[in-house]
């Protein structure tokens, strides 16, 4: 966006321990100037602690924090060019909206705040509410005051700690778009902490998935979703079907695997496991990539697709799609989401089916990991 790097956030080896408990393991992270960065994870994964270390509200046990070229590791919060939107907004109850927004400007000794505050209230569409007290506003309005109060200071970085957590679903969707619009408009680096994977994927350019005090994987939302590197990411971000398979042969760009009685093809570039011939690998595929065909029509399936046979154990119709649970020899609960375009009336529980998908959608993971990592965390968060 710009060559200016004063809004970069660089964390080098920062960690935080409380007694014997390690909240954040030594972590290196660079958030480039002007990006919308999300720290995603279940509660207790260390994402908020990381954010608070950037804000200066928590002192790292080791490592350093840089903003641009300035080291801020030991600066108190009031000396950092960073502002925070707190989880429950933390608006000052004794001050009206105008004074809440003007607070940061006044502390920095700026005398004529009227114009700036009014412009900022206009940006968040709260011009009419300037003289009200926070408790007179709705949750969504309070949220926008919290954003205005932070943004008016033109921070190098804006930190958002679960800013939409207290809002209902509809308002949350609306505020996600609103925040994204504001971020594009002001061009400030946003670091956003959330447990809502959908929120992280809709808003952020880059998402870091955190688990137990470590960053599991970092990348663009579509990268993380299409090519997860760990079972935690595969299960936490959406749903994945994971099958244990054995490496059969390697041919050019592909790895051929044996699973159950059949063979599956996995592109080498999408395999994060060390994978030697005869070794194991966890094969994954997202439920919506799979096509279901009734066993009677198996002959019509195109060549070169990965196939698995099974029996429909359960199906639930949810409007835009139908979700099937398939009992197959390789995996007892294989999930398949099918768009309701041309519904095959024979696809009911008990029917024999063939599951098939394009090998390019297959990913391979290191089998040493817990196959169910992140399953509960994902459900809890969603």
């Amino acid at each position, binding site marked *: 966006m710009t060559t200016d790097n004063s809004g970069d956030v660089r964390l080098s080896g920062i960690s935080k321990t409380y007694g014997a408990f390690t909240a954040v393991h030594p972590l290196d992270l660079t958030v480039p100037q002007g990006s919308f960065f999300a720290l995603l994870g279940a509660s207790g994964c260390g994402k908020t602690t990381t954010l608070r270390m950037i804000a200066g509200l928590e002192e790292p046990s080791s490592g350093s924090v840089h903003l641009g070229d300035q080291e801020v590791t030991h600066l108190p*919060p*009031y000396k950092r060019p960073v*502002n*925070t939107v707190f989880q429950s907004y933390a608006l000052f109850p004794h001050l009206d909206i105008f004074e809440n927004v003007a607070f940061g400007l006044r502390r920095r000794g700026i005398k004529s705040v009227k114009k700036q505050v009014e412009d900022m209230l206009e940006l968040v569409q709260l011009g009419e509410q300037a003289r009200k007290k926070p408790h007179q506003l709705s949750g969504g309005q309070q949220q926008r005051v919290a954003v205005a109060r932070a943004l008016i200071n033109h921070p190098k970085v804006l930190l958002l700690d679960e800013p939409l957590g207290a809002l209902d679903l509809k308002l949350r969707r609306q505020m996600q778009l609103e925040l994204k619009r504001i971020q594009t408009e002001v061009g400030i680096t946003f670091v956003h902490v959330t447990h809502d994977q959908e929120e992280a994927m809709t808003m952020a350019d880059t998402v870091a998935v955190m688990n137990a005090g470590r960053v599991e994987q970092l990348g663009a939302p579509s990268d993380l979703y299409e090519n997860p590197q760990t079972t935690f990411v595969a299960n936490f971000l959406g749903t994945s079907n994971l099958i244990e398979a054995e490496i059969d042969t390697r041919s050019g760009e592909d790895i051929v695997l044996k699973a159950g009685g059949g063979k599956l093809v996995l592109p080498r570039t999408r395999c994060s496991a060390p994978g030697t011939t005869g070794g194991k690998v966890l094969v994954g595929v997202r439920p919506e990539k799979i096509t279901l065909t009734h066993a009677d029509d198996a002959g019509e399936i195109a060549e070169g697709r990965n196939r698995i046979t099974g029996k429909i154990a359960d199906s639930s119709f949810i409007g835009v799609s139908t979700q099937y649970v398939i009992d197959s020899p390789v995996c007892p609960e294989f999930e398949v989401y099918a768009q309701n375009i041309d519904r095959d009336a024979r696809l009911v529980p008990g029917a024999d089916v063939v599951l098939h998908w394009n090998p390019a959608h297959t990913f391979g993971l290191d089998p040493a990991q817990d196959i169910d990592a992140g399953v509960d965390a994902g459900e809890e968060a969603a």
Partner: protein
Amino acid sequence: MAAVTEAPPLAPAPEKKPPRKRGRFTPYWLLLPGILWLLIFFAAPMIYQASTSVQTGSLEEGYKVTWHFATYWDALSSYWPQFLRSVFYAASATVLCLLLGYPLAYLIAFRAGRWRNLIMILVIAPFFTSFLIRTLAWKTILADNGPVVHTLNSLHILSLTDWLGWTAGDRVLATPLAVVCGLTYNFLPFMILPLYTSLERIDGRLHEAAGDLYAKPFTTFRKVTFPLSMPGVVSGTLLTFIPAAGDYVNAELLGSTDTRMVGNVIQAQFLRVLDYPTAAALSFILMAAILLMVTFYIRRSGTEDLV
């Protein structure tokens, strides 16, 4: 149950009405004990006092209501120094309580951690012994050749307080300072408890938010913590000032004839001089004065919408 199921569909409607009628008077029935209590122990004595204050006569011949309002004027003109002294002592004690109590309440609310309950108990513990005994103990503490007076003397603080007229000679006992010390000591918990309650209610994230918005720790205190603790400051100062202004025990035990407060005068008029009208009139003047001051104070502190 059976009656309800057998009744025709419209029958339950009239059945619902009686409880609603009873319900209309329920709040008044619930209020009755409180109202009776107030009538017997507050309104009746007040009316009795008011009538006493406008009576004339003597103990032997009996008192009669003669609407003799001059008693008020006489009482005020003879005892105005005691009135002023009461206000001054009570105000000094209140300010001292605030200065001592605020840091302590702040410490308990934000810094005490697991010591919080212990410190709270220590604040309240003196109440387990009698008010009189505790005040008498101060006689020993401030005794002429005790360590406190000795230390104050060697630090030359007594010569300063002598010069200000708070102490006399090398004594602390029987001086204004002793009375104010006693008042401060006795009413300090009444300051600490409301301060603690309102400080403890402040959301810690507001401090973080202020820090995040460039407020240094002291600015955070001035702009966020203190304004939010105003309800505690107001109720604490009222709970200290009002009883301190009417107190007579501290002046009686720790003071001298030069430190008599209006409470001492009222007590003497009632129990020793037996001049009931003057005593009643003095009580009413004190009450009116406190009411006026408190009203003015609450208006000025502008905490109506915070409380």
